[in-house]
């Protein structure tokens, strides 16, 4: 059985004439869920958009096998649409025929736990609810590889928990989840693999356990790990 795969090889990208946001990055997503960590401006979102094909790389190559779903950081609220309509529309935009898009919407709305909201208009949803609508929308194209840009950013702890629980359920169905985070507070299920980015380059790519407990000599990794540990020690983190 073929697995959903994204392979970026020596990919670079810059916005206009500014310095490269992504600089000669090579990465392969091969079915395991992955958290793309990094400070603001590290290039995580740009890398994710390059993976999703939302941006065109200026050099290097991109190879995709299978169906990929993408959720932007600012999830659109389609004016006048209900939750079901927006999720189905995402599936239709991604190429599914209408009946299949509707069917897929119902399935994934249930999977992310927002069945009670199907008839609610998206412009009345809270941030956590909207994040789960975004996840269902990204999955609606029957994606087996899900790219999520900061799915839990700006959410309160309860909403963040509900989003992470939804992602865990999605991962349990065999979908590989790739999410970006700038706080590391999302470290946990379903993310077994961690990639740390700084200034457009990858500084760490390995298991979560190794990231949190391994010996590191890269200053960028050390800074992030010590910041995470300090957060955990102060009792404010929930990773």
């Amino acid at each position: 059985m073929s697995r959903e795969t994204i392979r970026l090889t020596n990919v670079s990208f810059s916005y206009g004439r500014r310095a490269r946001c992504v600089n000669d990055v090579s990465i392969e997503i091969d079915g395991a869920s992955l958290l793309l960590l990094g400070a603001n401006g590290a290039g995580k979102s740009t890398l994710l958009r390059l993976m999703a094909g939302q941006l065109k790389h200026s050099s290097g190559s991109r190879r995709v096998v299978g169906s990929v779903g993408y959720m932007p950081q600012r999830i659109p609220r389609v004016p006048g649409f209900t939750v079901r309509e927006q999720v189905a529309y995402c599936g239709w935009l991604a190429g599914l025929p209408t009946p299949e898009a509707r069917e897929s919407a119902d399935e994934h709305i249930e999977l992310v736990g927002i069945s009670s909201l199907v008839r609610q208009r998206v412009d009345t949803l809270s941030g956590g609810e909207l994040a789960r609508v975004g996840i269902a929308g990204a999955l609606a194209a029957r994606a087996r590889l899900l790219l999520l840009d900061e799915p839990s950013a700006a959410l309160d702890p309860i909403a963040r928990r509900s989003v992470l629980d939804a992602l865990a359920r999605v991962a349990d169905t065999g979908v590989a989840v790739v999410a970006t985070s700038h706080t590391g507070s999302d470290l946990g299920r379903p993310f077994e693999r961690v990639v740390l980015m700084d200034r457009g380059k990858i500084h760490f790519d390995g298991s979560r356990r190794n990231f949190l407990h391994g010996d590191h000599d890269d200053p960028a990794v050390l800074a992030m790990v010590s910041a995470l540990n300090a957060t955990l020690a102060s009792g404010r983190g929930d990773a």
Partner: protein
Amino acid sequence: MIGADRPIWRSWAVLGTPIAMILALALARASEVFSPFSYPLARQAAASVAILAVGPFVALVSAWEARVLLAVWGRLPVHRSWMRVVAGRVTPQVLTGCGIMTVVYVERLRDDLLHSSTTLAFYAISIAAVLAWSVVGAALGLWLPTVIALPAALVAPYLAMTYPASWTPLWLRHLTGVLFDCCSSSDRVSPAAVLASLLMMGALIGLSLAALEVRLGPSKPRLDRVALMVVATVSLAVAGVSSARALGALPTEARPASELVCERNVCVWPEELGVIDANSRAWLEVQGALFALEVDLGATRIAPIAASGMLPMVVSTTDRQVAMVAMTLNFASLVDRCFDSETAEIRFGAAEQLTRLLAAELGVTEEVGFDEGTADTRTASELYALLTQCAQ
């Protein structure tokens, strides 16, 4: 299936249809040229005026629907062509717009709907206009902020369809998609006017599609495609203008005399058969009076238009007396063939005197409203000769 989103009954295209329908029917009814006889072409033209309500309606809904595209475009993965996605947003109002126009045509034309060869031409212009204004609305919605796009979509089509009617050169009005001042029963719509309208609607669609391509196409618009659209738009517009320039103020041409139906001494258009009897009797009396005045017209027939062996004297009435008075009033001016500004005053006096003599012979002096007479001693035959032989 158009798309996977809202059921069509929840779209503004459907929700706004009753209001648009009422306005469209009201406009069509108000636009019909009054005539006791129902000329299908005039009713077709009146039905086509409903686009003044339907055009802004579909443009407004399209501009509103463009907000959906703005919400998702560039933010979500879209694996369909922008044309397919735009079609999904525009199709409901195109369908309802065409539906409204169809209802208006059916309501206005009823039995003549399938019998009139020109219905298709008017209907084609209406459908092209619905399509054009729908796409224009989408382009406005995608290029302008919503707060500007919505009023612009409502007002711009209306102004574009009505304002050029009062501009010079007069042929500009034929590029609006509305055939103004069409048609009296002696006219038929000019193919040049139909063609000009269709071409300009095509140009409008081409221009809007080019704007959409730039807005929604790949981040670097494919210049070859945009250039092709612009060239097609300009070509259509130029062809439309050249077609319209051949026309004057009216989108019409003379109806061919071959369509006349003749009975006894009267020829009429097929839809005016009801006036034959009154006109025939009135004309016999007028001819008799003229004969008594020593003006012999022989077997001259009357018709709605000037044609070989016919005087354009048919009156749209079923009342013999009314027809006779109208013929008395019109006779002299209609036989005056000596158009010459230098002798205009002389001829005018002659025409007035001939009318006076004819009215007196027919006993309708009071109805005609002329006084008893002047010191003019010329006979009717002399006056008739003065007006028709152009010797003086």
